[in-house]
């Protein structure tokens, strides 16, 4: 599998107090650690363990993931548009690698 890739789909703008849907996809093998390769060697575990979302500096969403989650995790959730600002999405795996993506949201009165 090629480099980790993050994608987030959400509105660019919303009215204050609107509920908005945010959809995220992350390309990651989510290798369970339970499988063996063609010559019988154990394939080391390699999973995303934490997904977080900070909205204008405030943590609004966090998930602990484990080897039970399929590859390329898709996580969608809702939040309330409160103020204009950046949403910072972070995926961290068990090798300590973190991929981040940020999206800005404009909140109209």
């Amino acid at each position, binding site marked *: 599998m*090629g480099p980790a890739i993050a994608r987030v789909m959400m509105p660019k703008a919303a009215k204050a107090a609107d509920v908005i849907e945010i*959809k995220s*996809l*992350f390309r990651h093998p989510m290798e369970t650690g339970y499988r063996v390769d063609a010559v019988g060697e154990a394939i080391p575990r390699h999973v995303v363990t934490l997904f977080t979302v900070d909205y204008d500096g405030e943590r609004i969403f966090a998930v602990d993931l484990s080897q039970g989650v399929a590859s390329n995790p898709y996580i969608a959730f809702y939040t309330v548009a409160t103020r204009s600002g950046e949403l910072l999405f972070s995926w961290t795996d068990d090798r300590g690698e973190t991929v981040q993506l940020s999206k800005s949201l404009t909140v109209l009165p």
Partner: protein
Amino acid sequence: MNWRALCFALIATLPSAATSTEILPSGTTFLSQGLQAQAADAGANPGMLWVADGERLWNTAESAASSSCASCHGDAEVSMRGVATRYPLVIPGSNQLLNLEGRINTCRVQRQNALAYAHESDELLSLSAFVARQSLHMPLKVTVNDANAEFFAAGEAAFHQRRGQLNLSCANCHVERVGLRLRGDVITHALPNAFPIYRLEWQGLGSLHRRLRACALGVRAEMFDYGSEAYLNLELYLTVRANGVAVETPGIRK
């Protein structure tokens, strides 16, 4: 012979669906509502991760001696629009059948001074998904002509050839048993309009040729190589049969 009898005689001699004008339903329509919705939603379709990577590759030069796809082709939304609906094709004067992957690799080698991408590599899957995505919702339009007739005939024969320990032809399943179940799957018309596809069983994106190898394994027949003549001929036949069906790349399958 009156005109009715003549019509009947003509219809009776038509070789297959390939020459009929009926537009076959996409494989997507055989999926659950949930999977159909996920495939149609660019925010939820995991295949879009490869499309996004394809866009990155499109805009990146691999080395100083090379140039990016974009440096020649510009904005893919314009230059690659509709391209995937015309493949596989025979480049005039070449007598060689190329599918989209093969066409991309031709540019790699001849125009970018780079090595061809390996079959099923993430790079080739990503670029072909990205290029095909520019034809989203456009109908496939590959017809039989002088240049490709020979390849088409070989593909058509292969489609009806029984093979493997189970001694089944593609048509035995994909024409005669459409709509019936095989294990967890519903058998479809075997259309190539959603490839490369994100298959849940693969946990990733895969090409049409990977799917054809899976079907060969299913009947315990010989699996041909990725990009082999046998699979290119079949791809041409499948695409002509799918004429008029809209591109859905990247599709989702079980």
